[in-house]
């Protein structure tokens, strides 16, 4: 069974640039999560979906971050006008709704200089 696939693996940006991260969850998983993991910290929830619906995006930083999951399968997380404080690994995870067993992808490591 294929795992959660994320791309790109790495991204280096200058402040003010935009970047998009892509996630392909495990087939059949209806729930998809995006986490931000700063260096030497635990993953911090940004947003999660059930199918195409946003369940909770209250932790998504202001208007520079956006996330979509239009067909309830793949998802894109976008940062507009990146800041140095956005430097982190962005992790995508998926599961069945109500199931606490998450499968994480390997993440996208973002460096903003």
């Amino acid at each position: 069974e294929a795992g959660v696939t994320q791309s790109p693996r790495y991204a280096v940006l200058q402040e003010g640039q935009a970047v998009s991260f892509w996630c392909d969850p495990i087939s059949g998983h209806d729930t998809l999560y995006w986490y931000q993991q700063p260096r030497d910290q635990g993953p911090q929830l940004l947003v999660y979906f059930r199918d195409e619906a946003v369940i909770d995006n209250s932790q998504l930083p202001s208007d520079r971050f956006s996330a979509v999951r239009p067909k309830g399968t793949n998802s894109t997380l976008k940062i507009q006008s990146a800041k140095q404080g956005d430097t982190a690994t962005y992790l995508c995870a998926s599961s069945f709704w109500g199931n606490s067993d998450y499968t994480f992808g390997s993440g996208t490591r973002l460096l903003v200089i």
Partner: protein
Amino acid sequence: SQWGEENLQALSIQEGEDVTMNCSYKTYTTVVQWYRQKSGKGPALIILIRSNEREKRSGRLRATLDTSSQSSSLSITGTLATDTAVYFCATDVQGGRALIFGTGTTVSVSP
């Protein structure tokens, strides 16, 4: 934060030694999960313990949960160099659907 400060640790041990790490949580939860994250990888679930369980074992792993003190521990017996990783406890706050992670314990096992 859902988690107490005991979560923040770094441990260096030799292969074959046993190690125990702890975390405490602030609000009621029905399940505590322990994840392992190796360098360059995402976290992977290694053991899950529910509020009606005091202890759970899986191979060399042993998790405990004390709901009265709102704390959990993870023990690894006979560590291997491949156990080198960051270990996180996680829980779904107030029965919500999304996991909240602690800061993690870094375990380095030397051959």
